[in-house]
C-alpha cells in the first residue's frame, strides 16, 4: 500500500550507516530485523545509481534520514551513543475490510477515484493500530475482525450501515448507521472508522479531523482547511490581507487567527461555516499567537505587545477579562500552548538571550525552563494526551522536529538534514503531528507519526501552505 522508492531506501540505508545502529523499524513498514543492514547496503548501491523523484501521491512516504525518534543529548541535539531501537509495545490487530454490499443504492466512487472501502481502509491504517487487509484476493494472516457495511437507499436517502464482525464466529459486535448521501460523502466513512477505532482500542481516531493552515495561492494570505488525508481543500477567509496563526477552539467550532485586515495585527475569530470574522483583540501593537483552552473554558491565551513589550495574556473569547501572565520587559514571550487539562502552559521566551521553551502554571506562577539545546527552540505544541511536547530546534543550521516529555526529559529528535521545519501541531490521537517544511521554493504541509516514522506530504497547492493547526474531532 505504501511505495518506497529507491531514493527513500538509499537515504534510509545511509541513516543506518551514519548512526551505526541496527534498528528494528516500529513504523508503518513493519519490522525489518538485523538483515536490514545488509539489505540497506545493497539498496544504497541501487540508490546511488538513480534517486527517483517522489511523485505526488496522497499516501507516498517521502523518506528521510530519520525513520524513528532518536534520543538525543539535551544540549547538542545529537543522537546519544549507539543503542537498539525499541519496537512498538504492541502488535497491530489485523482487520479485514470486506467489500460493501449495495441494496437499492448505486455503487459510486468518491473524489480522487477512491472507493468507500478504500477510504475506510486508509482511515483505519492511519490510526496505526491495525494491519488492514482488503478483500481483494491477497492472502494475509487471517483477520481477527471484519469491518463491513451495507449501503442502503431508504426513502430516497442513502445510508451506510456499518458493522464490526468477529471473524471466528461471524457475530456482529458493533453496528451503527451513517448518512452517506449520493454522491457519497467522505465524512460517513471517517465517522465509521473513528467509531471502529474507539470500539476496538478505546482511543480517539482522527479520521473526522481537518487541518487549518495559511495559504497564499490567491496572492493574499488566507486561512484554509483540508481533511486530515489531504482531501477537500477549501478556503475559509476572504480578507484580502495577511491572516495567520489559525487556532481551533476546544470543540472545533471556532478558529482564532491574527489578521492585518485593518492595518494592524489583530486577533479575530471565525465560526467554521460562517463567513463572518469577529474581532477579539485590536489593541495597539501585535495581537498574536492565539491558543484556546482545550479544557473548554472558552478562554484564549495570546501574545500582546500593547503595554510596550510582547507578553502573554489570558482573555475570554471576546477579548475581555484580560489577565497578564508574564512580566519580562526585556524579552519576548510568545507561542503559548496549554496542557490538555488547561492547568499549565508551555511557551517560548528569550529572557536568557537564547530563545528557549519554558513552562508555567496557567496563572503565570512557577515558571521553569524546559529546553537547553545549544541553539534556538521554538513553536511548542502540547500533545492532547499530555505526555509529550513537540517543538522545533535549530542545532545544525536548520530547524528540526523534537519531542520531549512535559518535564523536559526524554528529548527525541524526529528529523535531520531535511530542511526547515515549522509550526508542528499534534493530532487529537497524540500519535501524529502535522508541520510545514520548505519543498524547493515553497512551503508544504507534511504529517509524521510521533516516532518520526511515516513522514508524508499532505499538500501540493500553488504557493505556500504553512502554519498548520490540527482540529479536534469534528463530530
Amino acid at each position, binding site marked *: 500500500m505504501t511505495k518506497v522508492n529507491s531514493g527513500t531506501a538509499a537515504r534510509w540505508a545511509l541513516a543506518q550507516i551514519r548512526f551505526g545502529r541496527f534498528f528494528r523499524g516500529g513504523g508503518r513498514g513493519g519490522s525489518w530485523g538485523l538483515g536490514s543492514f545488509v539489505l540497506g547496503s545493497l539498496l544504497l548501491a541501487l540508490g546511488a545509481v538513480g534517486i527517483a523523484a517522489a511523485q505526488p501521491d496522497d499516501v507516498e512516504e517521502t523518506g528521510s534520514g530519520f525513520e524513528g525518534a532518536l534520543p538525543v543529548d539535551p544540549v547538542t541535539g545529537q543522537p546519544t551513543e549507539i543503542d537498539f531501537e525499541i519496537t512498538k509495545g504492541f502488535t497491530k490487530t489485523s482487520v479485514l475490510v470486506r467489500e460493501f454490499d449495495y441494496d437499492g443504492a448505486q455503487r459510486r466512487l468518491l473524489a480522487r477515484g477512491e472507493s468507500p472501502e478504500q477510504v475506510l481502509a486508509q482511515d483505519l491504517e492511519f490510526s496505526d493500530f491495525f494491519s488492514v487487509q482488503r478483500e481483494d484476493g491477497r492472502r494475509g494472516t487471517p483477520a481477527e475482525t471484519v469491518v463491513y457495511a451495507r449501503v442502503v437507499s431508504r426513502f430516497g436517502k442513502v445510508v451506510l450501515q456499518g458493522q464490526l464482525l468477529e471473524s471466528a464466529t461471524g457475530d456482529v459486535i458493533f453496528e451503527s448507521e451513517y448518512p452517506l448521501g449520493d454522491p457519497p460523502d467522505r465524512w460517513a466513512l471517517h465517522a465509521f472508522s473513528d467509531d471502529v477505532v474507539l470500539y476496538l482500542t478505546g482511543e480517539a481516531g482522527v479520521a473526522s479531523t481537518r487541518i487549518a493552515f*495559511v495559504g497564499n495561492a490567491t496572492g493574499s*494570505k488566507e486561512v484554509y482547511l483540508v481533511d486530515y488525508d489531504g482531501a477537500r481543500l477549501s478556503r475559509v477567509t476572504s480578507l484580502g490581507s*495577511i491572516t*495567520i*496563526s489559525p487556532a481551533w477552539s476546544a470543540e472545533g467550532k471556532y478558529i482564532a487567527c*491574527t489578521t*492585518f485586515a485593518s*492595518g*494592524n*495585527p489583530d486577533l479575530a475569530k471565525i465560526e467554521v461555516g460562517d463567513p463572518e470574522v469577529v474581532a477579539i483583540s485590536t489593541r495597539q*501593537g*501585535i495581537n*498574536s*499567537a492565539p491558543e484556546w483552552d482545550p479544557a473548554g473554558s472558552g478562554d484564549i491565551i495570546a*501574545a500582546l*505587545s500593547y503595554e*510596550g*513589550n*510582547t507578553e502573554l495574556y489570558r482573555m475570554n473569547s471576546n477579548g475581555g477579562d484580560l489577565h497578564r501572565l508574564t512580566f519580562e520587559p526585556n524579552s*519576548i514571550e*510568545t*507561542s503559548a500552548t496549554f496542557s490538555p487539562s488547561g492547568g499549565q502552559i508551555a511557551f*517560548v521566551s528569550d529572557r536568557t538571550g537564547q*530563545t528557549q521553551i519554558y513552562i508555567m502554571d496557567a496563572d503565570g506562577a512557577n515558571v521553569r525552563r524546559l529546553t537547553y539545546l545549544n541553539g*534556538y527552540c*521554538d*513553536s511548542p505544541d502540547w500533545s492532547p494526551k499530555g505526555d509529550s511536547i513537540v517543538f*522545533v530546534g535549530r542545532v545544525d543550521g536548520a*530547524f528540526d522536529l523534537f519531542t520531549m516529555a512535559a518535564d523536559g526529559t526524554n528529548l527525541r529528535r524526529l528529523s535531520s538534514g531535511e530542511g*526547515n521545519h*515549522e*509550526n508542528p501541531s499534534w493530532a487529537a490521537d497524540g500519535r501524529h503531528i502535522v508541520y510545514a517544511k*520548505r519543498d524547493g*521554493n515553497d512551503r508544504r504541509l507534511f504529517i509524521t507519526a510521533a516516532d518520526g516514522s511515516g513522514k508524508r506530504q499532505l499538500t501540493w497547492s500553488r504557493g505556500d501552505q*504553512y*502554519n498548520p493547526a490540527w482540529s479536534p474531532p469534528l463530530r
Partner: protein
Amino acid sequence: MRTFFRLSFLAVIAAGVLVSGCSKKDPQLVDPTAGDPGPGTEIPGNTNTGGGNPGDNGVDTGGHEIPTHLEDVFFGLDLYSLSTESRRGLDANADVILLHPEWQVVLEGHCDERGTVEYNLALGQKRADSVRAYLADLGVPIDQMRSVSYGEESPFDPGHNEGSWAFNRRVHFVR
C-alpha cells in the same frame, strides 16, 4: 556573515550613487538654512526605501527643497539592536521628520522567513519599537510615530538565501 551583508549594502549604495547621477531632479538638495548635511545616500531601484516619492519635496519659504527621504535600517539575524550604520541612518531620518511635524510615520518591523511565524511577529515588533525609542530620544514626538510588525509575512525579497534574508531584516519607514 556581517561582512557579507555590509559589503552588499555598500555595493548597493555604490550603485545608487552611480544611478542617482542620472536622475532629473536630485531629491537630496538640502535646505542651506538647515545647517546640516543631507540625509544619507539613497538606495534606488526599488520602491522599498520608504519616505514617499522623490518628486514631492516640500519647499521652504526660501524656495529651497526640504528633504523628505527616510531610509530603512537593517538588522542582524535574530537581533533588534541598532548597529552604528543604523544609528547614522536614524539620526538623518530624525532630522527629516523633525522638519515635518505634520507627518504620521509608520515604522514597519520585518524579519526574514526563518524561525516561526509567531516569534518573528514579536521580533519585528521589537525592531520597530527599538527604532521608535531611538528616534524619540532624538526628540521626535512619540505620537508622530506608530510601530507595526509584519513579522516574516511581507518580505521585500522573495529569495531563499542569505542575501535575501539580510535584505528582509529591516524597519521600513512609511509616511
